[in-house]
């Protein structure tokens, strides 16, 4: 890990974005959403994500790329087992009715990701140099070590990781926003690598 703790500079915006994201998710699911955890950290290699990211081994991610002054990625991740629960919730049902996911479920996941991550892009995006229009969301299913590299834009990144929980449904979603930190702004702020 390199660099100073980023909470001081980006923490307030990240908190606000997370609060808005939980409201948006709550509105989508008609449910109470808690923010279980929020952390900001620097990665000096994508492999670090494997030890840093607190996610189950098998998961589904919905990822968008953003190109502004920096390259960035923003993902909504969930345990594979949680996907049918989310699908049911988005259709206004309780519980998981089927483990099999259809095209409509995946479409709903993409839009959920769009909506939940929107507050991060509008609030944190400009501060992190990510001001472009995000790409169409891509859904990937796999193990964390298979997927990790697709969640970060380049070798070094500033990451915002938020865990949103719907307690009544036993559902936990993770937002991971990763902004490349090769631009001069970040280089100037970065202390010498020890």
């Amino acid at each position, binding site marked *: 890990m390199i660099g100073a703790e980023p909470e001081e500079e980006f923490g307030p915006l990240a908190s606000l974005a997370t609060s808005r994201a939980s409201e948006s998710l709550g*509105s989508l699911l008609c449910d109470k959403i808690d923010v279980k955890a929020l952390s900001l950290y620097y990665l000096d290699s994508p492999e670090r994500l494997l030890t840093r990211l607190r996610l189950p081994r098998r998961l589904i991610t919905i990822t968008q790329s953003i190109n502004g002054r920096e390259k960035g990625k923003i993902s909504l991740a969930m345990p594979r087992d949680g996907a049918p629960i989310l699908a049911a919730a988005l259709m*206004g049902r309780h519980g998981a009715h089927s483990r099999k996911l259809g095209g409509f479920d995946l*479409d709903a996941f993409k839009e959920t990701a769009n*909506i939940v991550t929107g507050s991060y892009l*509008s609030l944190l995006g400009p501060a992190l140099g990510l001001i472009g*229009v995000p790409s169409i969301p891509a859904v990937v299913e796999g193990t964390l070590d298979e997927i990790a590299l697709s969640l970060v834009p380049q070798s070094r990144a500033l990451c915002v990781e938020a865990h949103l929980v719907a307690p009544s449904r036993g559902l936990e979603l993770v937002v991971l926003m990763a902004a490349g930190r090769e631009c001069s702004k970040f280089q100037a702020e970065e202390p010498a690598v020890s």
Partner: protein
Amino acid sequence: MGLRVLVADDSLFIRDIIRHHLERLGFQVVAEAANGAQALNLYKTLKPDFVTLDIIMPQVDGIDALAAFRGIKSENPEVPILIVSAVPFDKTRDTFMNEGALDYVTKPFNKSSFERIRSKLGAIYPTAAEHSPESQPQDSDRRPQ
């Protein structure tokens, strides 16, 4: 009969939600488009009274949302177009509002999002607001929003 609406969004899930809200307000969704090119073609064919347009859709035949917006406006500069987006970027909002959009709403929608739109449309189509079935009892919402 209420206003005839074209809904353009690449997400079937979102189109379903928009249709639900619009039909509750008494509008008639006459067509759905999954991209800007489709939206433009359907507009030319059906000439709806009102269009909702998602701004992040796959580009097809070189037509993105802004090109579709301009294409529809060139067909009929007076047609109201509602922009919908998951990302509340001020710059994007300004771009479309300066191009003449009716309004810009951010997902997720709620009832009040579309109530506001109905009010704006009422100024353009005064008789349309009289057709809302909202005052009548509704079936329970299928959608959670």
